[in-house]
């Protein structure tokens, strides 16, 4: 499952409307609790461990993909 799909499901938006520029400032539904849920969901979907620093940076789709790929995740 692509990160866009996960983000779409967690925040309840159509994955087709999510691109690399989508971020916690462009998406109203992306609040702090949602961010915590997103990090946990990414960890369990891709079997990776994300550090607190990662979590702080992963506030837009492009960065999320870059960090996930650097940990060997693929979709």
């Amino acid at each position, binding site marked *: 499952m692509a990160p866009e799909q996960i983000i779409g*499901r967690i925040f309840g938006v159509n994955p087709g409307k999510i691109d690399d520029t989508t971020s916690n400032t462009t998406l109203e*539904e992306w609040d702090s*609790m*949602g961010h*915590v*849920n997103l*990090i*946990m*969901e990414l960890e369990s979907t891709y079997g990776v461990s994300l550090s607190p620093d990662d979590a702080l940076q992963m506030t837009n789709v492009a960065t999320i993909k870059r960090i996930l790929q650097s940990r060997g995740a693929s979709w």
Partner: protein
Amino acid sequence: MSSVRDLTDSRLGGLPSDLLEQLVKAATKASTAPQAIAALAELDPSEAVAWLLVNEQLARALCPAGELGKLVDTVVRASLGDSNGARVSNLAQLASRYADIVGADTVAALAVELPYEKPGAGVKETLARVLERQPGHAGLLRAAVDRALRGHDSAEAHRLLTELGRADDSQATLHYIWRRRGSLQPSGGPPVRVAFMSSFTVDPLAHYLDLECRGLGLEPEIYVTPFNSWAQEIIGEDSGLRRFDPEVAFLSVAIDDLITETSGSPAQAQLDEAGATAVGRILAAASQFSDWSDGVLVVHGFHSAFADPYGILGGRAGKSRSAWLADLDAELAEGLSRFPRAFLLNMAEIFARRPGGSYDNPKMRHMASMRLCGPVVGEVARAYTRYIAPAKGLTRKCVVLDLDNTLWGGIVGEDGPHGIRLGGTSPGSEYQEFQRFLLSLTERGFLLAINSKNNPEDALEVVRSHEAMVLREDVFSAMRINWLPKPENMKSLAEELNIGIDSLIFIDDNPNERAIMRQALPQVLVPEMPNDPSLYRSTVEALPQLQKLTVTEEDRTRTQLYRAKRQRDQTRLGAGSLDEYLESLEIAVSIGQVDEASLARVHQLFQRTNQFNLTTRRYTAGELGAVARDPTCRLYALKARDRFGDHGLVATALVRTENGTWIVDSFLMSCRVIGYGVETALLATLSEDARAAGAKELIGEYIETAKNAPARDFYPRHGFTELGAQGQATRWQRSLADELTVPPKWIRLEVS
């Protein structure tokens, strides 16, 4: 003739239109249809869609249903991904035609793609039909929610969101559900105000509780105190919490937040001192809360994220960490018992039951201040509803039980009284364990009854004589063992016990009987029962509708009360006139003012009496306490007994005096004593007191409800004349100058 495989291979050589023609032809032959349609789906999805729409009958005749369903899936999937694919409205039509076999995932994906504005595509209906086949499919539910939201159908969206929460209770999904509800109209259920006061992040818990409350039919309003300000919010005169005025409040303060040293290895003395301070802080907060709130307060027991720092040596030198925590909990429990509406939530019990993994997620504890994580959150939310349900009067009164495969294993009519499974070893010990739990319910004031399809002789032989039977005939307040439809029996049970159908819980192992009951009598609570009898006990134990916030003397003896009632009813059959019968009962009543000891029971009557209740004003315990202390009010309590037993405190009346006039604000009586004239005795005492206090007239109020018909003629029957409406109420008046109401001659008044 060339095979389908040859045909598809030959596409490399060109002639696609020719190929398609041949494939279409092959699709109409039984031997080659499935492969041909599959090949069509692969090569030209839109052609396949068109073919399937035109040749539905043929396709169904030629392909096995399972295979055809998969083919439809392939076609729709391929078309969705393909920009040249069939138009989505055609796909919607296709899914609708094949709704009985198309895959749930496919329909969910299609629904997301299809513009909502497209009319006549029937997507809503297709979703509903596929959901019927696969209830609890999260993807379908999300798609259905989406369409309900876009259609501004709040009621439907609420219903679907609740189902979605049941299907997928991950933290992320519950958060999504919670946010979505925010944009909807209220669901229309009775509201309940719930507050969270916590030293850590409880948002996931709040989201979960929202779902559970809606499962109970309530519309929750939730307040979470701002981060780490639980103490200020409880103390502050004008805090958000105080303005919110919760009906139920949950205080969760982590011991690790109160005592930061728990992560290290402090000396025993230091821990003990810090522990005492921590308990003191919580109890002070409980005391302050109880000063300004009538609400129920539930305090989490202590739990720590940290294991004993001495490892396996913990407990060798001084108290182990877990022994220390258990001691603190005991102190907390003792302190809280001083407040009648405060409870300690036993976290150890919840953790013991928690499904899947630890409640502590170290990463989330650091990142998001979360101290309860994962599936345990749902367990805690469900524990919360065990306080909310009784606080909102959702407690049921009677558990009605099936017999075969519910109270024992097997069918007594077939296996014989000695062939059924019931005893100390398995199979059979599961049922005995369940029966023991049911028996304990009678000690908290719940009634048990039987509603079963059996030959009465067979069933009664087991109930009376089987050595392993825990529930004997005398614990059942009423029995229906016959071959009538169970809903009919249910109605007559409610009538015999004189309680509403909405006071009943029906336990039956048979899904058909459960479905029939839900259909015929939706007011009856019919829990889903597991197939495995070893899970019966925990399933019924978990019902929030079987919790009470207080247990009164009346509760403890209720089963005996109903047994005495049965004896009375039998006497009645033998007695001559009604007067002779009432005379023979030797009824005695005592009437007095409510005091500390009787307040809990009077509050219970105010909460639960529906039938003989003149105004049905549901005062809180705090309000009634204030009334009892108010010199301008009188709060009467009536106790009754007769030669068959003690009825206990069964009637109460609240009088307000205004400028010398006595106004009966509330007057209510347990349905157990309807028909004995007890209410007349209470009115007589009240009238005498009023005249003695110098009142010239007595004013009574009546507010009609759906349930209080038995009380409708109370005032006219006692010589009151109607004054007209006052707000919701009708007022009735009777002069105290004339002769006063007298108690019925068969009732003896005792001084209390």
